[in-house]
């Protein structure tokens, strides 16, 4: 149990995909213009990550080694398409905002990375936990970046106005994404360094 818990917390903290592994930067920078967008992107990725980790871990013994990458990609892209269809049907506004970044989850290196580095070598349960941990780490990071950018840039959080008027627009534009990511990375390193 202790080992499983470690797999899970490693995903959120020690192997945090954004602040430690610095993977999946494209959706991170592009979709975190508001907290809800960041969270939506995170949850979509979380779902794909958990499902593909489970399936790939189940199939790890029957997939021939030389064609494992195409096999993984087919599995991952199927789950992404499923997520895309579901979002289109039930949360269309969010789907329209995230736009092209939903299909791009297929090539998010976090997912293929976890499939290759973890799910193809570990049991189903452990892989699911790893997917959950990494996915939550990704979701939390994106939500935090989104919140900071939304507060500084639009003066609101999750769409609720904190004060009247506009914020510093630059935090909503692309440069703000780099600023916020950089400073949050410093904070994250500082906090986790103490624990270790």
């Amino acid at each position, binding site marked *: 149990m202790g080992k499983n818990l470690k797999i899970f917390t490693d995903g959120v903290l020690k192997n945090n995909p954004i602040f430690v592994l610095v993977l999946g930067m494209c959706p991170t920078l592009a979709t975190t*213009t*508001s907290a809800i967008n960041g969270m939506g992107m995170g949850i979509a990725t979380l779902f794909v990550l958990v499902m593909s980790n489970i399936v790939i871990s189940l*199939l790890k*013994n*029957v*997939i*021939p*080694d*030389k*064609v494992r990458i*195409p*096999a993984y990609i*087919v*599995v991952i*892209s*199927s789950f992404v*398409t*499923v997520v895309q*269809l*579901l979002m*289109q*049907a*039930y949360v*269309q506004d969010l789907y*329209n905002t995230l*736009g092209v970044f939903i299909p791009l989850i297929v090539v998010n290196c976090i997912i293929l990375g976890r499939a290759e580095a973890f799910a193809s070598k570990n049991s189903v349960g452990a892989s699911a936990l790893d997917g959950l941990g990494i996915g939550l780490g990704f979701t939390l990071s994106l939500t935090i970046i989104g919140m900071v950018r939304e507060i500084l*840039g*639009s003066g609101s959080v999750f769409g609720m106005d904190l004060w009247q008027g*506009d914020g510093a*627009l630059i935090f*909503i*534009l692309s440069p703000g994404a780099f600023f916020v990511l950089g400073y949050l990375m410093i904070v994250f390193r500082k906090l986790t360094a103490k624990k270790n």
Partner: protein
Amino acid sequence: MKSSLKNMVLMLCIIALVCSAAVAGVYQLTKEPIAAAQSQKVVDAIRKVLPAFEDCSERMEVAGCGLYEATTDGKIVGYAVEATSPNGFSGNVTIMVGFTADGTIYNVEVLSQAETPGLGANMASEGNVLVASFVGKVAGEMNMTVKKDGGDVDALTAATISSRAFSEAVSFAYAAFLEVSEENSKGGVDFASLLPAHDTLENVESADGVVYRAILEGQTVGYAIEGSSMKGFNGLVKVLVGFDVDGSIINIAVLEQNETPGLGTKMCDADNALIASLKGKKASATRFALKNEGGDVDALTSATVSSRAYVEAVEAAYQLFKKVNL
């Protein structure tokens, strides 16, 4: 598993097959919710950009835009036009513009855009200056370009390109609206029944009204002239009157009316009392008034007001005829 050719092909095929079956299953399940969500979005937008109405037509493709006709009891309330400009700051800007029947912009709603958040994306926020510079304006009387380009539109701060794209989309929508409303006002008029045999029909530019000149081998043989009266039972009555060059009325077609169904609307019938008492008559020798009011025209039963308006509209056309037929 060993990477033999047989194994590799077999496994990839099985995985691809299972995955595509799963995707197809989810597609089937979500097909209806997706279609419902999308049409709901469109219907919501149409409701927002037009005054209250009962029925809405299917989407019609007009001049590259999607057009919806909104009606109440068969009367046109307005048109909602979905138009897209490809010239946004980040791609397409798609909007829904509501026109009332007289060409006034009732409201504009942004359907999709990917403009800069905080700048161009403000076009979709409540009560922004860009939308406000269109709402309530008569589309034909405004210059749909931003003030920087010499037009009447207030651009969003620091989002001139987005504002230009928005204005362009409105002008596309207006073009589609014009095409449909012109088509409706001509209402598929059968000019052959109004005019003598002719080979060309020429739209004569006239400040006083719409005049079509029928020409046969270079000779003018007749005119079709629009006349209207605002004194109908429910406002406007517009007719198109066919004259030959001697000033005889050949036939009359009703272009627009909102009269009482079953009574005043009989003016649209092919052979009604009104047409019967005017058709073939020399306009100069006709007294344009109802019989019980000292004129020569039989009124429609129980539709005296409508009949008066009809006669007034025909007379207006005759006055114009006298001006053009010199």
